[in-house]
């Protein structure tokens, strides 16, 4: 066997965004040795892009808020197919996790009496999002990074993991390569935490960056773990649509939280026409009331622009499809109109939404204090992922934990804005805590050296085939198919076609070639990421086919309504013995009465 550099940690964390950093900090604090592998440089992970805020029932702005309201909001937003225990833990623990960030140096915007300020967001009954302008994710990742580097964590930057290592049923480490030199590394660990984020790069129009290729989902699946709820992909209603080079770039929901409205080409505010029944009681029925809500009037109900993301995205798609869209195939998002209400509107917008102002000015030649933005849906987030135990975050593979976007359960069929940042720290902490505990109770496993040679040979195969197909072409074709056949509006025929395409993409991925050598070679990295992208794309498609109904983020043209038969089940994807992908329906855990009662009270 060639001599691979080997590292040994008690706990290995794969991923360095909010969840990975929080897990690493917690595990380290528990007294075990911790290694953290980052695909990019430390502090650049996708958490940095989060804008609007972190949801936690601190009740600083409205003292009617509590964990119970947050819990009920999360379940309602998720169409009640969330894992109730995760939703409960999340609502209860988020406030402590936010206060802890402040103790570690985060500088949140303040209320007049000097406490952490909270803002309105879609689906949250009260102002609940602690924030820093519209760059909350940056504040969070920098705080965790700056705290974490003093905790004795070994940080391995720009490393890609190609497979998890197992000893019998247990995960005992990971095998990967460093991007700089292309050398293989073995990471032995008693417990492994996956915190790899999302899968947005499976789609053409996305707010996600290059590294969101579903690595954790794919690693867990190939190691034998179950993936649940993979059909639920959040298409954020407001991505930029023009110019082409920024298509999909996120426009924060904070714009609507601050009073921004959605209009069609006729200038009509269309969201008032489509308020779902289960939100009617808490949604404004006139524009004046909606405006008062955004300005903090506790007696007003929220404007329909702040309905859940799945619903707003579908309303926008309908406007566009029926010919009422904007010139570049979107609708208008208008915050400039508030100058009718506020004398200092321009300054107010720049202070509350500085990066949105900057982004449109620099990339789109639009001054959002003066004119409306053009927006349309963009692939943003996956609710589905590794099935984990709610309390410990361990998957059904011993020693393998998952937290953050790559884990599933908390969000059900649709995630509320702001619940992802809180998810990262609540369940990142839990994953770190229980991974450390597992590491203390178990010894290192045995690495199978022959197997490792096989993984290395497989990873190097594209170099033997320099005349093979360009890996970027396969990636691009995959993104087109997922965008068109497994997007916001789905039906069986299109998804079956997608499966046929996926089959040929697997074959093409097997034959790709790369040029050049192993030193920092993006062509090679793209070739190796294809396996992950194809695995998650197939999982999304198979799960979406299995759920023959429309619920939350899953909308089926051929089954446009909710179906009671699917109201208490999750789809679960597993690798079958013969290596094929199988999908089944699995009952959701039964919710205890005290939580049912809370949901009833909050209706």
């Amino acid at each position, binding site marked *: 066997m060639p001599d691979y550099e080997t590292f040994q940690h008690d706990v290995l964390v794969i991923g360095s965004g909010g969840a990975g950093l929080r897990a690493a900090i917690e595990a380290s604090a528990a007294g075990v040795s911790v290694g953290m592998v980052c695909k990019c440089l430390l502090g650049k992970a996708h958490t940095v892009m989060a804008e609007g805020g972190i949801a936690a029932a601190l009740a600083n702005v409205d003292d009617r808020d509590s964990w119970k309201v947050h819990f009920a909001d999360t379940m309602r937003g998720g169409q009640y197919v969330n894992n109730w225990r995760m939703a409960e833990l999340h609502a209860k623990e988020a406030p402590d996790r936010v206060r802890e960030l402040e103790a570690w140096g985060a500088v949140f915007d303040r209320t007049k009496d000097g406490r952490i300020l909270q803002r309105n967001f879609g689906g949250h009954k009260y102002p609940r999002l602690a924030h820093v302008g519209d760059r909350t994710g940056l504040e969070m990742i920098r705080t965790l990074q700056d705290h974490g580097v003093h905790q004795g964590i070994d940080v391995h930057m720009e490393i890609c993991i190609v497979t998890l290592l197992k000893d019998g049923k247990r995960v005992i480490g990971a095998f990967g390569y460093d991007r700089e030199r292309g050398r293989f590394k073995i990471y032995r660990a008693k417990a492994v935490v996956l915190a790899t984020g999302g899968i947005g790069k499976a789609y053409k129009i996305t707010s996600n960056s290059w590294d969101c290729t579903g690595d954790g989902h794919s690693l867990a699946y190939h190691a034998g773990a179950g993936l649940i709820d993979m059909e639920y992909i959040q298409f954020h209603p407001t991505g930029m649509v023009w110019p082409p080079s920024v298509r999909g770039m996120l426009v924060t929901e904070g714009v609507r939280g601050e009073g921004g409205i959605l209009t069609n080409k006729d200038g009509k505010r269309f969201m008032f026409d489509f308020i779902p029944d289960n939100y009617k009681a808490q949604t404004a029925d006139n524009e004046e009331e909606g405006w008062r809500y955004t300005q903090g009037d506790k007696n007003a109900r929220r404007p329909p622009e702040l309905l859940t993301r799945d619903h707003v995205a579908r309303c926008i798609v309908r406007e566009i499809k029926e010919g009422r869209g904007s010139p570049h195939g979107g609708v208008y998002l208008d915050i400039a109109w508030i100058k009718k209400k506020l004398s200092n509107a321009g300054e107010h917008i720049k202070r509350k939404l500085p990066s949105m102002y900057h982004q449109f000015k620099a990339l*789109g030649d639009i001054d959002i204090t003066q004119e409306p933005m053009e927006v349309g849906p963009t692939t943003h987030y996956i609710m589905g992922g590794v099935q984990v135990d709610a309390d410990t975050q361990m998957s059904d593979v011993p020693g393998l934990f998952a937290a953050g976007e790559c884990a599933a359960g908390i969000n059900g069929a649709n995630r509320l804005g702001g619940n992802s940042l809180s998810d990262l720290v609540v369940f990142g902490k839990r994953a770190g805590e229980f991974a450390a505990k597992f590491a203390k109770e178990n010894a290192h496993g045995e690495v199978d050296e022959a197997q490792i040679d096989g993984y290395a040979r497989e990873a190097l195969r594209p170099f033997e085939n320099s005349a093979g197909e360009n890996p970027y072409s396969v990636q691009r074709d995959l993104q087109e198919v997922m965008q068109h056949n497994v997007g916001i509006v789905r039906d069986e025929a299109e998804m079956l076609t997608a499966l046929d395409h996926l089959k040929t993409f697997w074959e093409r991925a097997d034959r790709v070639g790369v040029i050049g050598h192993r030193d920092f070679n993006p062509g090679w990295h793209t070739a190796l990421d294809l396996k992950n992208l194809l695995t998650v794309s197939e999982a999304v498609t198979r799960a979406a086919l299995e759920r023959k109904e429309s619920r939350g983020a899953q909308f089926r043209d051929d089954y446009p309504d909710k179906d009671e038969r699917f109201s208490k089940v999750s789809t679960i994807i597993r690798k079958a013995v013969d290596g094929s992908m199988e999908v089944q329906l699995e009952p959701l855990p039964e919710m205890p009465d005290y939580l049912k009662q809370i949901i009833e009270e909050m209706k």
Partner: protein
Amino acid sequence: MSAAIFRIWRGDAKGGAFEDYTTDVSEGMVVLDAVHEIQAKQANDLACRWNCKAGKCGSCSAEVNGMPKLMCMSRLSDLPLEKPVTIEPMKAFPIQKDLITDVSWNYRVKKKIRKFNPRPPDAADGTWRIAQEDIDRVQEFRKCIECFLCQDVCHVLRDHRKHDEFIGPRFLIYTAALEMHPLDTEDRLEELRKAHGIGYCNITKCCTKVCPENIQITDNGIIPLKERVVDDHYDPLGWIWKKLKR
């Protein structure tokens, strides 16, 4: 759609040269789009770092027509496309490959700066009370996306190579954010003066000019820090007081 020539530096620590690539230019394109287009179609092994493509992560720093910039925020419509657009790696750090440099020095420097250490909480529930106006300045510094363009352009690092004696504008701003944080109790002034070399900065403001976040690095950060360091070190009454306190 018109075409433009991109003159991109290709090579590694041993050496390299510029290579010309021609690619189509469409409305709204930024330099990073052109690099991606070339990477996908003509040079799969062209190395460049990027993540967010929205000016928020600070990964795609490079020198475009000689100016330190984020490639994702550099519009082609702002560049003279009748001439080739040159793209090369940052100069203050060792070359790894093509447009990628070894920025690990920055991470080592940060680790040496004493971490945030808050005063005891103000309220019984473990929270603090802070006025917004007391954190406006700190929030300005915390906008930093760690693109290291300020480090790249700073002549103390770029030309004089004082990496062992000077922490550079990024970490002066980082220290300023800690020193001006209303909750922090540490004193980093002595370190700033000695190990961190604040005296090397002669306020040419190059760092401020290249900051993609428009942080007033020199005026709002470095100059007030310099004043604090001077007050602390050369104030005779303060000096006696500190001696007595020990």
